[in-house]
């Protein structure tokens, strides 16, 4: 075992982690731990853009952006947080430009902007050009630019280090923290992939920027490595997770594969059609049609398929039609996604419509934080020194449905805030003692899996998990389907206790890490389903066929899920509580587009 000591430890090197590192590393001694290499992070897969009311091409302002974000999130957004994000969006884009990000340009040489789902002029009048972009590679450019700046600043990275535990001063799983006693973080425990060695990183501040958990589903746009590590570690240490039942299904995944085709395709004029060639979004969202928010478009698509207007031999997808666009326009604005269609489906988007179907894309929920990225351990108290930003966090700026482009914005705005806050905390806080034997939990789990002779196979359990989540907890949900999902997930958690791995080696044992990641997925899937069962309404990305309407009287509040000890040693259960939504400017209205 090795021990390291840093003022600030950042876990994750995607957009949020590296944006935080750029701030904290100039102010405090900082280390960034990533289970990949920084440029492999899934920020790089984001395509369409990053919204900010620059008003470079048409009239716009941050208040309209705030409103769209609140309405897009079906009023479950904390409005103070959304306002911060929309205001700081402008500087966030300019920061990136100054760092060298190659944005597309207007003829005058300013940053160009384009339309995106749910982003409108003057509170819903018409679509507005707000998304700053670099072709359909905006996330790639952000990831590369932030890494370039990290190289420039000589940020210290620990590549291929998997963080497997977060160390706190108190055991939160029993709910017995004495009134008024501060809870603080003391560091993290990490596993070095190349050697199998365990490392303890002692830190005054820890920033979680570990991304999402899309791999709980089968059809997903997410990377294999998006296994919700940060969320699950927090949950296991007794930190609540907020609004996990809200998962975004992106309308346009390549059918059968789930690979993302950006909403920018529709922002640039692409049209969704059913088997009859009908532009069906005209029926569901008469004003902004194909540029309605993602939850509405995804549900509309699924409904077309359900009502037998799907395309293809099995009538199980709809068509994204770009054939009326000029090939030169497609090449200039959408080069990557059209290449995906060619490479993976053999479809030529110039002349043929592309088969698409919703794909699990983004966790609106996550580790609850304040607008300064401080992690909450209940509705009001923060954990000293622990911060979270990006998809792992729930500020909540996305409410029950995130608008397109607001994730690249979120990582930049709240990544920056997290980096500043983490460094500031480290400059004044004193060192917290590490717990006795800080690595015991991690070492025990690893040894159990490596030495297991009984053998449930990781891939069998993971496949069964993903199957039940796709079948029972996807775009359409009912009490019956969710009850089935919960029973399945709990049965899989039992099977997981006897999971074993074939690779018994120390070096680059990815077999072992996949087993550990599966444990994270199982824990998070349970929280998603428990929350979805309890929320007997339909709001944003959570649609209950048995409760098809939004119910503000009963449910306009955040879900807070806690893992709490049952009394049986080593066993926890999920307990739900609620947290009020912060409403400032906008009273809830019916959500129509």
């Amino acid at each position, binding site marked *: 075992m090795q021990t390291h000591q840093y003022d600030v430890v950042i876990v994750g090197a995607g957009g949020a982690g590296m944006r935080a590192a750029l701030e904290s590393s100039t102010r405090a001694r900082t280390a960034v731990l990533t289970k990949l290499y920084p440029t492999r992070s899934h920020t790089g897969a984001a395509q369409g853009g990053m919204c900010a009311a620059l008003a470079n091409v048409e009239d716009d302002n941050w208040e309209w952006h705030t409103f769209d974000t609140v309405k897009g999130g079906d009023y479950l957004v904390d409005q103070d947080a959304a306002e911060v994000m929309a205001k700081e969006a402008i500087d966030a884009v300019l920061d990136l430009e100054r760092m*060298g990000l190659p944005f597309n340009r207007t003829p005058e040489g300013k940053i160009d902007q384009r339309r995106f789902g749910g982003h409108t002029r003057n509170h819903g009048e018409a679509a507005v050009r707000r998304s700053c972009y670099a072709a359909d*590679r905006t996330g790639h450019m952000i990831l590369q630019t932030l890494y370039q700046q990290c190289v420039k600043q000589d940020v210290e990275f620990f590549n291929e280090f998997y963080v497997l535990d977060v160390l706190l001063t108190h055991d939160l799983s029993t709910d017995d923290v004495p009134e008024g006693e501060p809870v603080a973080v003391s560091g993290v425990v990490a596993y070095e992939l*190349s050697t199998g060695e365990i490392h303890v990183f002692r830190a005054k501040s820890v920033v979680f920027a570990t991304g999402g958990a899309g791999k709980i589903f089968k059809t997903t746009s997410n990377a294999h490595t998006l296994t919700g590590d940060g969320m699950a570690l927090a949950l296991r240490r007794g930190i609540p997770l907020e609004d996990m039942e809200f998962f975004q299904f992106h309308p346009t995944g*390549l059918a059968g594969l789930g690979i993302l085709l950006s909403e920018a395709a529709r922002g640039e004029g692409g049209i969704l059609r059913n088997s009859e060639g009908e532009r069906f979004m005209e029926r569901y969202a008469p004003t902004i049609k194909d540029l309605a928010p993602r939850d509405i478009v995804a549900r509309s698509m699924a409904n077309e398929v359900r009502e037998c207007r799907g395309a293809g031999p099995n009538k*199980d997808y709809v068509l994204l039609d770009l054939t009326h666009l000029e090939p030169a326009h497609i090449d200039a604005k959408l080069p990557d996604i059209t290449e995906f269609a060619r*490479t993976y489906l053999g479809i030529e988007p110039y002349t043929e419509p592309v088969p698409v179907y919703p794909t699990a894309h983004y966790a609106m929920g996550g580790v609850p934080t304040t607008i300064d990225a401080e992690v909450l351990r209940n509705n009001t108290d923060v954990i000293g020194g622990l911060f979270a930003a990006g998809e792992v966090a729930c500020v909540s700026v996305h409410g029950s449905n995130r608008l397109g482009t607001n994730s690249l914005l979120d990582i930049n705005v709240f990544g920056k805030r997290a980096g500043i806050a983490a460094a500031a905390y480290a400059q004044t806080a004193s060192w917290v003692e590490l717990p006795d034997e800080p690595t015991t939990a991690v070492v025990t789990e690893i040894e159990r899996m490596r030495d297991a002779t009984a053998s449930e196979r990781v891939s069998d359990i993971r496949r069964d998990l*993903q199957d039940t989540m796709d079948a029972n907890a996807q775009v359409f949900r009912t009490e019956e389907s969710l009850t089935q999902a919960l029973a399945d997930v709990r049965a899989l958690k039992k099977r997981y206790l006897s999971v074993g791995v074939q690779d018994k*080696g120390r070096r680059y044992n*990815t077999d072992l890490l996949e087993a550990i990641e599966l444990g994270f997925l199982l824990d998070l899937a349970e929280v998603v389903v428990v929350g979805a069962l309890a929320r007997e309404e339909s709001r944003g990305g959570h649609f209950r066929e048995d409760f098809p309407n939004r119910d503000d009287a009963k449910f306009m509040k955040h879900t807070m899920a806690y893992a709490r000890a049952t009394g049986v040693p080593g066993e926890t259960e999920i307990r739900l509580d609620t947290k009020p939504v912060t409403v400032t400017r906008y009273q809830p209205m019916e959500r129509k587009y």
Partner: protein
Amino acid sequence: MTALDTRENDAAPSDSTMGAVPSFDVTLRIRRFNPDAAEPEAYWEEFTVTAHGTDRVLDAMHKIKWEVDGSLTFRRSCAHGICGSDAMRINGRNRLACKTLLKDLDISKPILVEPIKGLPVEKDLVVDMEPFFASYREIMPFLITGGNQPSAERRQSPEQRERYDDTTKCILCAACTSSCPVFWTDGQYFGPAAIVNAHRFIFDSRDEGGAQRLEILNDKEGVWRCRTIFNCTEACPRGIEVTKAIQEVKRAMITRAF
């Protein structure tokens, strides 16, 4: 069948999107190396798995790892050609495993899968990427500007933006660098990827560090080691005209005084 890919499901036939492509057996002949063995030595091992219409080499590798031999080790993440984790030598050519469809290969023979060349092999298909990233860092891969920060964005015309577009696509997968015979034999050569990333800034109208970068690349291990073999251009999974970019950097050295 969709099957044996990222979704690990070969239960329900649903090959609707692609027209019916029947399933087929494919043999992968994989170069293996276990550093934990008593006497570590590289060897070949063959696996035969059933694959389906849209499956890629990565899907077959996963099927082997998940169902046959969990110790088979390779890097991967996004699985659609964006993250740059899974560059491998497939039938003698550097490719991303997630972008290489099995049906596009000759499956009547075993498909050869080896680690990319020129970097130390750590385990199976995993190589030590540090020398690669060290070269990248050396060419100062970040925007260099003088004076005060502007209050708004710097202006750049669409034409100026277009000038360096091709080299912004790089995902640092190392397919180009590890396809270069000069790099194989001369471990000091910067390699194509580092030069591509220098090009991205040298031709960016906002950048003022071109002279410094050109000086670095004028080193004896710099651009002049390039023998215009075009392996790099052929290997690039992002379609970057790598050799052309290197030639443009060479030309800039001759024409720009520094």
